């Protein structure tokens, strides 16, 4: 097992957001988290990523406890996070964004750029542009590309298609499908049609808990079987 999350309780100040949330992840899987707004999907993802500390519960990655680790140490273990808000380092160029991500991993800049271009060759013409000038879709692709630099073990992707034009959503899904089976991913996604295309397994979240795990491929491909629970 690559990742095991057991009985996580997480609070924002006095307000509890997660109540004993648990999930597990096997090597090479793409697992989706679905649920209504406020169900705790992003909080769960952020807690796994080390952005938030759980009040109780454990997160184990390759057998090692990672809850309570410093953010930079979580990142150096190969866990990458693709943010929901699609914010890149706007004052830097695309090339500099890639260089910044490559340095701590020890990967050369050329190698890192080639990884980003492999998922989106059109990015080549934008390498020397300031990242703040990129469209939402291009930013998302840059964020995903940046997360692939080094030797990522686990990709946490938060609402990758939210707020994007339909044509770009298609590109993002193609990129995620291309990465599937090569890298383990947890994807938070609201769009059930997208979930049906991507997920090997999915967890339904409700009111801060993981209420159901769906493993059956036919059920996953038929969102009407679980959309009532959202």
């Amino acid at each position: 097992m690559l990742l095991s999350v057991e009985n996580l309780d997480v609070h924002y100040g006095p307000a509890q957001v997660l109540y004993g949330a648990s999930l597990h992840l096997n090597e090479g899987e793409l697992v989706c988290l679905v649920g209504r707004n406020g169900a705790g999907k992003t909080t769960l993802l952020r807690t796994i990523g080390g952005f938030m500390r759980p009040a109780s519960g454990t997160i184990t990655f390759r057998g090692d406890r990672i809850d309570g680790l410093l953010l930079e140490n979580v990142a150096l273990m190969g866990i990458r996070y693709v943010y929901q808000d699609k914010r890149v380092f706007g004052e830097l160029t695309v090339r500099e964004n890639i260089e910044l991500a490559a340095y701590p991993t020890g990967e050369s800049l050329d190698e890192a750029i080639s990884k980003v271009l492999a998922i989106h060759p059109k990015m080549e013409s934008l390498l020397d542009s300031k990242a703040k000038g990129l469209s939402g879709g291009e930013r998302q692709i840059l964020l995903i590309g940046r997360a692939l630099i080094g030797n990522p073990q686990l990709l946490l992707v938060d609402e990758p298609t939210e707020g994007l034009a339909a044509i770009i959503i298609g590109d993002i899904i193609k990129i995620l499908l291309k990465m599937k089976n090569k890298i383990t991913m947890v994807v938070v996604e609201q769009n059930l049609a997208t979930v049906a295309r991507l997920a090997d397994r999915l967890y339904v979240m409700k009111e801060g808990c993981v209420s159901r795990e769906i493993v059956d491929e036919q059920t996953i491909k038929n969102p009407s079987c679980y959309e009532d629970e959202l």
Partner: protein
Amino acid sequence: MFGKVENNPTLTLVFTAAIFLIFGYATSLPKITDFMIFCIFVIGFDLLYGHMGQLSFGHMLYLGAGAYGCGMFAYHVYPDPFLSLLAGVLLGALVAAVLGPLVVKTSAAAFALLNLALNEVGAYLVLSPWHKWTGGEDGLSLFFKKYGFINFQQSTFRFYFCLGSLLLVVYLVLRLVRSPYGNLLKAIKENEVRVKFLGYNTYVYKYITFIISGAIAAFAGALTSINLSYTNTSLISPARNVEVIFAALMGGAGSVIGAVVGGTAFMTISNYLAVYLIRWEMFLGFALLVFVFWIRKGIWGYVRKV
């Protein structure tokens, strides 16, 4: 055209040298020497504020450490100007290195106010408990040895020495901010948490930048001591922190040329406007309002845009 100047280090150096040579010979060399030293101070301050996004209300502490390091070395140890300069820079860097672990852990208002508090402590120590070495309220009158044409008692020599020092600082800081290290500072300014999640220990980079910034401010302080041939408590006064903040905002924070332009603009206002307006500080207040509301990228940012 101005964008080209900023993107080319050689043009930047030529532009900076040309401006100060023209100003120096058109007005007064000693006055423009003061301008250049102040610009070095603004560059050091702006490395922290404009490039890394941390506003300090206590950077006079490092200017003062440099001034007193230089002055005390010359007064109590040996009046060699270069060794005194080195002593000033080292003392400033040492003070920043010692206080850094405490200061760098904070951010925003806490960072600004903690620096101010430490500046107050430093000013008090210099004024009273350490008066035997610092000269207390009277300060120290300084004399520096001459070596042939190297004569710091000559205003022309001081002018060219400070011009060379300014160009050196501009060149080194330009190299720094255009390197991957500089990009990291910009990224920390934009979103430190996300930089951490790329695997960086941002504390280390902030600490190193704090020391570099303190050392540059100390260099400006040591040059001030040599230029004025004295060191006194006005060089560590917390009340003067506002000058460097004004200058950085006026010139355009986050740009080395902006710091030079801001330093020059501030010194021009405080030196020349004071001749015509008794309460010239009021003009600075209005100017600051204009910059905060309408010219947020400062004079240099505005010129580049136009």
